[in-house]
């Protein structure tokens, strides 16, 4: 089953490239602690999901690139083509001559409808190349202008046109001390729109990833490329094939089959490494947890710590809330790796903070004209605030 990726804006395109690169390198790395036959099954499964195989050429990523200015797209396309190992489709991108000046409303109300047909056509072409569509993976930032506005619009369109397919949005949570002054407005607008039309929101916080680079990896001058590579590594470890049942040798068919179980969630990814079992007294309550284990000794890993009822809500038994995916095939040359995808109260505080800041700005009507100029009225803001307050409340009460 295949996933079609939509890369939006500078953020989405740069991260998207790193993700495909990581997936490709991992699937073509030397046998990761498993038999040759298993390695081939792994590689075939990864290829079916993310790449299109052509007769005599390099694999082509199943992706559509969208941006309002050509610079980042051109860079991304050429970086992929230069590697010689995989590439993007020759015509699988859409861009304009100039940007949208970081204006969410312009992206949502003007760019979106204007270029709706072209973008949806590109996506349709990618969908037709798939034997079976598992769903869409949309990479975008939350607080930017182009990526966020158009991303919200495109996701809505995907909901209308492909109502039965799963959609997962990968959103980048901005730095707490970000540079864009209206980033909180953009964030709440993005989140509220996505909440209504997407099936799952996978969140990466820039601050958290930055900390990983600084403390765990000891990088002195952290560039966006470093951050994106960490992101891609985490995503890759979630998306690469895993077994579908204990002891069977077939890889799961549905990679987007992460059963979020409450619609739609906000989830976070803590850093990689061997999972330390902290015996802290106060956990963030989870609705659902997905643990993915790859590598050596995967069958004998002890996951009892994850089954502690204290981790979960009262109305859900840990058996139903915890999913474990395993495969012996090591990921990206790590002998053992573990990932946790969690739908929990993890993001309640950051979300509450953003909503609070946005509300303060809204109360003093600062910078609202940028939005009302292009059709985002105060009512839309109020709707967004209401929705997000509800989400925060329902997570607080878990």
């Amino acid at each position, binding site marked *: *089953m295949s996933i079609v990726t939509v890369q939006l804006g500078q953020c989405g395109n740069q991260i998207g490239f790193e993700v495909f690169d990581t997936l490709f390198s991992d699937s073509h790395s030397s046998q990761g602690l498993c038999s040759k036959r298993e390695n081939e099954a792994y590689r075939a499964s990864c290829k079916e999901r993310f790449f299109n195989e052509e007769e*005599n050429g390099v694999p082509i990523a199943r992706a559509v690139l969208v941006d309002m200015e050509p610079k980042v797209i051109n860079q991304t396309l050429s970086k992929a083509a230069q590697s010689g190992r995989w590439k993007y489709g020759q015509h699988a991108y859409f861009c304009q001559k100039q940007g949208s000046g970081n204006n969410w409303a312009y992206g949502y109300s003007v760019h979106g409808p204007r270029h709706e047909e072209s973008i949806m056509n590109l996506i349709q072409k990618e969908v037709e190349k798939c*034997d*079976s*569509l*598992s*769903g869409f993976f949309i990479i975008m930032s939350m607080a930017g202008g182009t990526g966020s506005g158009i991303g919200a619009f495109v996701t809505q369109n995907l909901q209308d046109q492909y109502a*039965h*397919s*799963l959609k997962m949005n990968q959103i980048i949570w901005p730095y707490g001390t970000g540079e864009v002054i209206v980033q909180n407005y953009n964030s709440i607008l993005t989140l509220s729109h996505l909440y209504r039309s997407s099936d799952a929101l996978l969140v990466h916080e820039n601050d958290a990833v930055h900390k990983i680079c600084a403390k765990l990896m000891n990088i002195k001058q952290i560039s966006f490329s470093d951050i994106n590579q960490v992101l891609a590594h985490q995503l890759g470890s979630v998306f690469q094939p895993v077994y*579908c*049942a204990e002891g*069977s*040798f*077939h890889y799961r068919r*549905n990679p987007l*089959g992460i*059963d*979020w*179980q*409450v*619609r739609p969630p906000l989830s976070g990814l803590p850093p990689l490494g061997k999972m330390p079992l902290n015996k802290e007294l106060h956990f963030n309550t989870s*609705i659902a947890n997905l643990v993915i284990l790859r590598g050596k000794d995967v069958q004998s890993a002890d996951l009892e710590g994850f089954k502690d009822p204290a981790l979960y*809500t*009262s*109305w*859900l*038994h840990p*058996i*139903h809330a915890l999913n474990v995916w395993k495969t012996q095939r090591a990921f990206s040359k790590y002998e053992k790796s573990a990932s946790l995808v969690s739908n929990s109260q993890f993001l309640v505080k950051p979300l509450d903070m953003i909503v609070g800041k946005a509300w303060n700005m809204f109360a003093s009507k600062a910078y609202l004209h940028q939005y009302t100029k292009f059709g985002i009225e105060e009512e839309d803001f109020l709707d967004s605030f209401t929705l997000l307050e509800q989400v925060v409340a329902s997570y607080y009460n878990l």
Partner: protein
Amino acid sequence: MGRRRRLVDPAAEAGAGALPKVIAALSRSLPAGPSPEIFRRAKFDRPEAAPALWQLLFRLLSPRSADGASASLALEAQVCLVKSALRSQGYPRLVLAQLPEDGSRGSRELLLALSWLLARGPLPEQLLAQAHVQLGDEIPVCECEALASPGPRVPHVEAEGPVDIRCVQWLMGRLRFRWRCLIASQQEQCTLLSKLLRRLERENTGLEAALEWRRGELVFWRWMDTVLGACPPEAPAAATQPTFLPRIAERGLGRLELAARELRALQEELCEATGRRRAAWEARVGGQGRGPQWSSARQALQKAVEQELAALRWAWEQDRGPARPHGPHRLVRCEDEAPGGQHLRAAEVIQALRSQEACLEAALRRLQGQCRQELARLAGALPGLIWILPPRC
């Protein structure tokens, strides 16, 4: 070069258009078949026809698995491979080996080589069988496949007592998710079915072409006679060139000898064993068995032994029957009772599987017994330790 003659209705070969039609049919039933025009030019040894024929021969002679990568091999590499493959199959004409490596000449010679291959065996049919579309109606005997895994557990929710509304929401969400997965699977099934139909259509075209070719074959062979006639006579030295036979690998030869030696040793052992038993029996019987009451007993014994031997032999023959199940067999519904050499009844397969099961179970029990005995022996050997044997299962 021998050729096969088939009895074909002469009326079918009448008409000037028959030859191109037959060649076209032949082309359609072969992979990368060139147009009839190429064949015509090849009869007159035109150089422009050579590359297409080299490529055709390459596709026919190269191993199956190289299909995807073969197109990317350079013409010279293909020429080399064709030459060596033909030589190892015993192609008698020297002229082909002397053709230039760049594939620029020799189309008539290549045409002769192609017809040599066609005459040796049912080439189009073999190729079609190789490219047969797998429809999933095959049952692999002697191979085990994991059954499809059942779906994930259905969550059990208590019916009595107050239910948290969030639990209901969760269940609804889960239901919706399963629903969407189902739809996606159905769409996938549709796409794959249409792909399958297209491949079947292509296979049908190939099969029809092979049939057409068989019907009009004679026309082609008569024409090939004229092609052969147009060739210059071969040098007399060619006749003395021995055919190039494939050599048995050194290791294979060693293994054969080893097997032969083992069989001989086994035979000697058997002879010895029977000799000993016979001597022991004779010693026991000794002076007895000379009287008249013994002759009838002996006759009865002889008959019993003969019957047992016959039963053993019959069982042996059954085991060694031609319908020994191995490898994949296709399930086909048959109306007629045609017993073919290749066919297996479903009942026979079931029988074979059951007897295998019984053998394996017996072997398992025997091995378990051996294990138990060994453990008991070990337990006895170490008095200080307490061994708790596993329960009999």
